[in-house]
């Protein structure tokens, strides 16, 4: 009895030593931070991180009445609507393509994956200064010129909103390889015997893809969709670096997603109450959308 008890204490001690730093760190930088920020969101906290004057839900009503905030929600919605299905289809397509290739697969995998090592800042620099720079020598314009197109100022062209092409292609280039790797792992986990059985039954390639590959990839697909969606909602780096300038900041950007809006109001205007309220509104939206998507994708189909 006593020896058992002493052993338990040793286990508890070891457990505490091993998990302690993480628990304390997350406690401070997540739980305390979010709690304090939540309190701030009900305060008039301009230029101060201390609780100022209690203003109830004023920050929330101000925010939800602010057209700039609402339009930022609209633009991130549009961005998500584009980027989620396109990223999903492209990464799955690339994975299937690579899976059908034996020689040189490692080279192609590297070629598609290596953009993932590049930061959004560097990618935005490339897109803004070389590919979509609006000069006749920019790559997009030079290519268009081959087909008789006039040079276009891609990043400031708002009707039609051609800047979306730059934004979307940038993100595709950067992240398609990551999700391709996940699909590739999923594809390689599918037992070959399933396809062999299908072949005996005379299944076509397309039928095999629909009735074997896609259902077998369901768990991977759900995970990938969630990851793409959450990443889309958190867009900041490329929008900031594609559109902002030293003179005007983000003010003249044709599109300002919620995190850039939040950055401007929390850090630019130093309105920490409003910024905190924005963080919570956004968190709530992300949680709701994620749950909805999980419901639609996760429970819509039956096994």
């Amino acid at each position, binding site marked *: 009895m006593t020896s058992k008890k002493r052993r338990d204490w040793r286990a508890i001690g070891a*457990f505490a*030593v091993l998990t302690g730093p993480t628990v304390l760190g997350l406690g401070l930088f997540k739980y305390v931070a979010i709690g304090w920020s939540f309190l701030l969101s009900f305060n008039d906290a301009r230029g101060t991180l201390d609780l100022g004057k209690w203003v109830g839900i004023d920050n929330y009503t101000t925010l939800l009445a602010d057209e700039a905030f609402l339009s930022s929600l609209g633009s991130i919605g549009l961005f998500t609507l584009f980027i989620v299905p396109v990223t999903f289809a492209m990464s799955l397509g690339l994975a299937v393509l690579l899976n059908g290739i034996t020689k040189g697969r490692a080279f192609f995998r590297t*070629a598609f994956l290596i953009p993932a090592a590049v930061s959004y800042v560097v990618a935005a*620099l490339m897109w803004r200064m070389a590919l979509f720079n609006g000069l006749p020598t920019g790559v997009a314009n030079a290519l268009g010129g081959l087909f008789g197109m006039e040079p276009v100022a891609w990043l400031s062209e708002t009707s039609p909103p051609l800047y979306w092409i730059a934004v979307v292609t940038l993100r595709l280039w950067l992240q398609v390889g*990551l999700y391709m790797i996940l699909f590739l792992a999923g594809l390689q986990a599918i037992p070959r015997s399933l396809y062999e059985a299908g072949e005996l039954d005379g299944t076509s390639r397309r039928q095999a893809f629909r009735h074997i590959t896609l259902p077998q990839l369901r768990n991977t697909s759900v995970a990938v969709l969630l990851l793409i969606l959450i990443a889309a909602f958190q867009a900041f780096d490329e929008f900031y670096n594609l559109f902002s300038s030293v003179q005007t900041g983000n003010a003249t950007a044709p599109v300002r997603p919620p995190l850039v809006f939040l950055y401007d109001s929390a850090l630019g205007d130093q309105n920490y109450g409003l910024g905190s309220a924005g963080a919570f509104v956004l968190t709530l939206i992300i949680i709701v959308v994620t749950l909805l998507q999980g419901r639609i994708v996760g429970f819509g189909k039956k096994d």
Partner: protein
Amino acid sequence: MALLTTRRPRNVGGYALATVLAVIFLLPFYLMVRNALVTPDQASSADWHWLPDPVSWVNFGDLFADESVPMASSLGNSFLIAIVTAPIATLLGSMAGYALARIEVPGRRAVFTFILVTLMIPQSVTFVPTFVVVGAMGGVNTQWGIIAPNLFNAFAVILFRNFYLRFPAEIEEAGRLDGLGYLGVYVRLVLPNSGAMLASLGSLLFIESWNAFLWPLVIGQDPASWTAQIALSTFLTAQTVNLPALFAGALVTIAPLVAMFLVAQRFIVRGITASGLKE
């Protein structure tokens, strides 16, 4: 064995498509190198040269000579931050992950939930709350202010927990029989046998830390605490831009990472695979 080779006749279309796509994916890298080595005139000239002629190395000198952008010290900051953050965050993740997987104590479930919940909060939305706390602690414009919040990574904990759940128990039992305590088993036997997983997470966290933009931008407003990404971004959004020097900056910023990526690719792919399938 014969079954494995029952592939349809050579997939010519597949190779052609993959080649075209590979060229497109690699094009920005070519442009980066090309534009970093041309003269300022050639950078925006309509007279296109595929290869820079003459090769202009002064752009790298210009990059570091620009006084409005402290590129050298920013690169130093980035390196320091990544080299501190990645190993510590990996080690802390391994420690907590091991305890959660293998040490049975009352309340383990609660600690697991406590950590798991932080994963559900979208990370970049918490930049305001985190700024509030780090700012109140006096971390604005400091390197520890950039580093500290990223040392505690719930994602790493969960990955390591999954890894240790499948860890062979015999290793630990052997250590127990030799009289090692829980911590002894972890330090002497478990950690040395986690090499691949440590390398995988470590490289991923290094890349993440090196490329981070939003948090360093928020907390490091003073040029002395800038990271390479912030310096580059400032350079990009400046009024007048020396184009070849800007591309030289991009090249200098990604070169160490791409080199590491090519070397550690095997581990990185494993890490990505593990992290994507956490559910």
